[in-house]
């Protein structure tokens, strides 16, 4: 056995926590190793000193006991209040749960009924005419909503700069190639309704 391992086992041996077989091995090593005998003595001394530190008499001040008991009594009172509240809630819980369940059931029935009505209603333009009365005002309202009057918001006359030199502001390609389109003015276009009597030009 090496001294290093023997030292590892010494604390447990001093504390009586070493397995009997290892203890015999350690004792055999220590018997023939002066260095480890000194280590065992040092370990015992150190552990005895710490035991003395840990177990030395200690007076508990009276205020400590009083303060602890005060805190414990407050805690016990709080626990008692909590248990009263829990009992009250236990009595109230069943009616509250029944009420909540009934409310959820009513909402669910209403939603299911509404969905069934929507599925049963026909679609298409005729359906609009046959739709229930409660839908009609919404449709009418949307149709009667006045269209935004864009033309009224525009100025009656173009700005003077644009009126004086429109080419500076309009750069559309179709206008630049206007001369190529001129021959289209000569083409007569007819429609079926005209019967070939009117020309477009």
């Amino acid at each position, binding site marked *: 056995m090496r001294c290093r391992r023997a030292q590892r086992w*010494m*604390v447990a041996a001093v504390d009586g926590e070493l397995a009997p077989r290892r203890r015999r091995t350690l004792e055999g090593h220590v018997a023939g190793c002066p260095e480890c005998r000194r280590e065992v003595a*040092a370990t015992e001394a*150190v552990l005895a000193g710490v035991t003395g530190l840990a177990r*030395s008499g*200690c007076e*508990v001040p009276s205020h400590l006991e009083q303060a602890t*008991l005060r805190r414990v009594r407050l805690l016990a009172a709080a626990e008692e209040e909590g248990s009263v509240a829990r009992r009250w809630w236990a009595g109230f819980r069943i009616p509250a749960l029944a009420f909540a369940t009934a409310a959820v059931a009513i909402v669910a029935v209403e939603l299911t009924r509404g969905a069934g009505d929507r599925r049963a209603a026909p679609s298409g333009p005729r359906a609009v005419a046959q739709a229930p009365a409660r839908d009609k005002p919404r449709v009418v309202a949307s149709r009667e909503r006045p269209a935004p009057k864009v033309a009224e918001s525009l100025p009656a006359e173009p700005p003077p700069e644009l009126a004086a030199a429109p080419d500076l502001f309009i750069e559309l390609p179709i206008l630049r190639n206007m001369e190529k389109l001129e021959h289209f003015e000569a083409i007569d276009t007819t429609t079926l309704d005209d019967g070939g009597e009117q020309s477009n030009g």
Partner: protein
Amino acid sequence: MPPDPAQPPASHQALPEAGSAPAAVAADPDVALMLRLQAGDEAAFQDLFRKYSPRVLQFARRFVGSDAQAEELSQDVFVQVFRFRHRYRPQSRFSTWLFTIATNLCLNEVRRPERHLRVDLWNRRDGEERAEGPPLPDPTAVTPEQGAAARQLERRLEVLVAELPAKQRAALLLSRMDGLAYRDVAEALGSTEGAVKALLFRATQTLKRGLREYL
């Protein structure tokens, strides 16, 4: 992450309900006190407090190194005992359960970042007499010189124990307190017996190195 001080070790929580181990109750009178406390007997709490508060206070003093903090921690330990009294299961020794709570609270205390500032503010100057804890009784100190040497050794040992890493310090103090077996120390630390042996070996080696001149 430090352990929750209020939570006893998992082994306590997984055990069956109180009252299912009459043998343990018969063997350990503290268990009977705890069962009385669980039944609402405040006198049982006072009995437990009077029996264990000196050891808890001493443990906390050695752990945190301050009288005021040790008293606060001792209060907290017994308040937690009362708060979680219904979680106690009589399969374990009461002292193991109690020192589990004490260890967790002490470990939380020494790991708090603001603690270092507070300790520094209240640290005594070198040479000033330490107030916490009476001196160790030393039957071998028959002369004033020997007595002075013993007190010097005791102070040196206190300093060395206080400087140990928190887990080593916890294992060392728990193993010295109240005859807690390594199994109980491991339970209190939420660790294994092998780990406790390793912690104790390292702690003892450090102390031996620090006390080389006295040994």
